């Protein structure tokens, strides 16, 4: 009885050892095949799913998150998010009440390259699909307005959607004033900050995190403006552009080395202040001046 137990342990050790060798050699030889999505038709998938629509929606949602995350982290400047919309479309067709898929999906889709596909049209289409499924869901209308506001800088359209969201059942009152502010002074950093501060109150952790990141970006943009003003002042005073932060410190414009809200030092080159590319806040959004 003891011999088979020892043999089992030895064989298990052999399996683990060979797996380690396999891993060290790089695993299965790479084949350059693109990610596949065998069934793209939401209607076909709804039928094939039988009574497992919700579970399949979860599977496609996880695939969408993984696809977005892995493409974003690939550091490939030409990274493509080809499967992102089809995956989100399948997810929301299988489970039309998968609210997170609409809200996060729109954020994923609208983000400009390389952090996202920059498909604001698809982000809006996804949210409109959500509105069709749940016409009273003011958050979808608000998010459509937000896509117009933040990524498209189409302020009249954004204001129209904010108004529509405010008039829906349960729509918050502040969206009405947001609509007015958007029309009057669309794109100002202050109004952007108000929007993100409201999103930061979301009960969805992911949305809160994204809002915090965007708020930090707005803070960084304010700080860069102040630093740039100091650098310009130095150039006017001394007659040459700032070479490094020591120039500004010695001239009394700064006390220390400036860092963005994540703690990454700002860069200065030929008198221009920029965010460091390694910062979590990079790239900063395209925004009018504060």
């Amino acid at each position, binding site marked *: 009885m003891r011999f088979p137990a020892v043999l089992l342990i030895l064989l298990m050790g052999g399996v683990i050892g060979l797996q380690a060798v396999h891993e060290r050699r790089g695993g299965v030889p790479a084949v350059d095949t693109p990610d596949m999505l065998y069934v793209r038709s939401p209607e076909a998938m709804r039928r094939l799913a*039988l009574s497992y629509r*919700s579970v399949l929606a979860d599977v496609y*949602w996880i695939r969408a*998150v993984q696809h977005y995350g892995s493409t974003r982290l690939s550091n490939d400047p030409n990274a493509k998010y080809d499967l992102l919309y089809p995956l989100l479309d399948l997810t929301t067709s299988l489970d039309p009440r998968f609210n997170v898929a609409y809200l996060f999906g729109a954020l994923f889709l609208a983000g400009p390259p390389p952090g996202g596909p920059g498909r604001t049209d698809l982000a809006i289409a996804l949210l409109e699909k959500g509105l069709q499924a749940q016409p009273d869901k003011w958050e979808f209308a608000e998010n459509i307005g937000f896509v117009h506001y933040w990524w498209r800088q189409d302020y009249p359209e954004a204001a129209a959607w904010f108004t529509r969201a405010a008039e829906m059942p349960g729509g918050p009152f502040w969206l009405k004033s947001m609509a007015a502010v958007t029309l009057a002074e669309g794109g100002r950093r202050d109004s952007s900050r108000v929007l993100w501060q409201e999103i930061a109150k*979301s*009960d969805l*952790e992911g949305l809160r995190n994204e809002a915090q990141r965007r708020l930090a970006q707005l803070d960084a943009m304010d700080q860069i403006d102040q630093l740039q003003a100091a650098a310009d002042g130095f150039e006017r005073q001394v007659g040459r552009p700032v070479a490094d932060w020591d120039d500004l410190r010695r001239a009394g414009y700064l006390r220390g080395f400036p860092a963005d809200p994540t703690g990454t030092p700002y860069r200065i080159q030929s008198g221009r202040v920029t965010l460091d590319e390694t910062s979590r806040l990079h790239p900063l959004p395209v925004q009018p001046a504060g």
Partner: protein
Amino acid sequence: MRMIGHVAVNVFKESVRDKVLYNLVAFAVLLIVVSYLLGQLTAGQDVKIIKDLGLAAIATFCLFIAVFIGIGLVWKEVERRSIYSLLSKPIRRSEFILGKYAGLVLTLLVNVSIMTAAFYAVLAYLDTQFAESVRAGWPAPATDPGMLKAIVLIFVELMLVTAVALFLSTFSSPFLSAALTFGLWIVGHFNADLRNFEAVVESRPAAYLARGLYYVLPNFAAFDVKAQVVHSLPVPSSYVATTAAYGGVYVSLLLTAAVMVFSRRDFK
């Protein structure tokens, strides 16, 4: 009635001996492992996904038990020739069939009950892992008792599947019975398409045939309210009662047919 009880208890004991209840361990491990991994894979949808997965796993694990044990209930007795000694005892054939059915339903009831308890335990644990602000955003509490409606309908669906498998096993081979039971289960999920067949075909007879099949074939899609309970959408108790009554009548029909077929079988 006592005879039915004896047969039922024996079927239950046999399923325990056959280690059918081991699937409960697999179910528990699946839920625990998945709930641990989900946090790394998805953007804060752990509870929804665990609910979806738990309900689907209860339905699937028990569907396999219902089909694969159901098809062997009668066939095994015939194959082992134990049917001769059984029928020589003071037991009617109808009692034999009903007892077999009740035994498997009892096995399923125990399985579903324990799985439900494990399911709620995992959800209760997950509930403690989230802040109050996050929980406030959920459409329903993690341990929403409303999910029991879906579980009740899953159980009625399993009773119907068991009746289909048992009925088929009274006159066909196990392989054919399993294939036909799964086939009926799949067709039963396309019931709504049969209802709307006339909208896509021009032939009147084909449309009438489809309409007839819509009424005659078991409508398994009606038992699926998993998505509704997960999203905390209203599932009226009257709907649960009507659907359960539909399942009950269909089960009675199949058991009557099974008793009729089995009573006429010649084992000489």
